[in-house]
């Protein structure tokens, strides 16, 4: 947490993941609880599969920087195939990483760095909720649920109320995915040898 209660969240994913939607839905949910918010995404040529980064600021005061987030409090990665150096850039000891992956950190070697690492199997939660299929799951609402849980910027109820207003179809599946993500966050277990 920074000055004025400002929390800065950076989200990494790919075109088609719904990264910018996730950022704006989180901002809107926090806004409904009376917070000041800002959300935006950056992309080069807009195309499916290209890396996309989105940013969310939530604070108690209206003054916020208007720039990309270099030193995030929380980083979210939609999958483990994204360039690790970019995802972790600027993340300080004490900061938090939320990673979408099945059980371990899939070779990301995150132990002993001083981050808080949280995992969520958003791909499986999404498929179980009926969103997409194995190999092409629609994961953003599951990750949003997990992000609400780890960030504490709003309640799960505020998130689901935003999703109900914003999502045009597959409402029940998306709400189930968000709740599944919220409940499905795990801590990364680091074994002594890895530390």
């Amino acid at each position, binding site marked *: 947490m920074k000055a004025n209660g400002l929390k800065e969240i950076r989200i990494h994913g790919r075109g088609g993941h719904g990264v910018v939607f996730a950022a704006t839905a989180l901002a809107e949910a926090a806004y409904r609880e009376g917070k000041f*918010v*800002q959300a*935006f995404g950056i992309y080069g040529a807009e195309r499916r599969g290209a890396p996309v980064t989105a940013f969310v600021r939530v604070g108690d005061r209206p003054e916020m920087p208007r720039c990309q987030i270099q030193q995030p409090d929380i980083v979210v990665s939609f999958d483990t195939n994204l360039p690790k150096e970019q995802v972790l850039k600027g993340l300080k000891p004490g900061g938090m990483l939320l990673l979408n992956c099945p059980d371990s950190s899939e070779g990301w070697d995150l132990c002993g760095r001083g981050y808080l690492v949280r995992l969520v199997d958003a791909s499986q939660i999404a498929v179980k909720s009926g969103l997409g299929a194995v190999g092409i799951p629609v994961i953003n609402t599951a990750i949003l649920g997990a992000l609400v849980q780890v960030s504490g910027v709003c309640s799960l109820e505020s998130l689901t109320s935003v999703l109900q207003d914003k999502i045009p179809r597959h409402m029940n599946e998306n709400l189930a995915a968000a709740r599944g993500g919220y409940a499905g966050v795990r801590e990364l277990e680091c074994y002594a040898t890895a530390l």
Partner: protein
Amino acid sequence: MEQKIITGNQAVAHAVRLSKTQVVSAYPITPQTTVMETLAEMWAAGEYTGEYVNVESEYTALSYCIGAAYAGARAFTASSAHGLAYMHELIHWAAGARLPLVMTNANRAMGAPWCIESDQLDSLSQRDTGWIQFYCANVQEILDTVILAFRLAEEVHTPVMVCYDGFYLSHTYEAVNIPSPEVISQFLPNPRTQALFDLQTPTNHHGLVGSEAMSQLMQVRFKAMARVFDRYNLLNTQYAGITRRSYPAVEYSGPENAKTLFVTAGGMAQTIKSFFSSTEREEALVRIKMFRPFPMEDIRRYLAQSHVERIILVDRNVCMGVGGIFAQEVRAALAGLSGLPEMVELNLAGGLDLTPELLSKALLAVQEGEKMIWAVNLL
């Protein structure tokens, strides 16, 4: 009034809708595209009821709006970068013809090479076309400025370009108060419903003139531009009366007797302000909202004060061979005054992101005596 989380581009569309615009025409270009996408959605939903004209280029988009404005319609277009450059000839024409058009420009770098980052050289290159130009610092301000722009354009018979940072404002979601149509109708009169042209009695406009007539017309336009300061201040006060939101042509924030002043335009102002508040610094910020006409008196009043020792001019654009363009204008406004403070430029040409980390590094470079600091060398 309702409050919504929307982007800068969506804010433009709301303002165009609330202004009862009769004709919109534009050609898509990143980062402007979602302005016209949102207007198209509003048209489909019956919320925007004017004409929506699809065209094959920016040149035609502005041509169409010029035709509509000649006929007396309230017309709007939007663009960025190469699209704006492609309109250039007609941008001159609209001002010469005294047409009260409003255009928004989401700032983007000019190629080569292709670059969609938020450099301001696209609209600053249109500096001498005779349009009024504003630069906005947040999403709410974009919505309010477009509404103000329609009234101002129609009162001084001069087109207005409302500019804002591509992505940092065009694509940023923030909480915005969207006024009700009833509130806006207290401020902005309904557009004319009778066409100025009558096909039964055809007339010809803006045919060939000699240099004397041309010079006289240019003097008239010059004097009209000089009236913009007072007119804008009056309209801004009136608008503030109904919305409680005010946007001075030049905004000063920070301690009154600050020794160091940052001067900038657009959304970078907000990063500088939050940098001050988080580090409890003693500097102040001067944000230039109105670029044409250039508010020289305000600039002198804030910058040429005996307690000011240093001015840091922050530009996200560069005029090759000279320096930052806002810096160049500020220097011209201060020319001839004695005892001026030291002036330093921090340049983010190419659309570089101004971060608190970059500001800290830039301040160190200032301490070391650098006069032209290229932010790209500090990354």
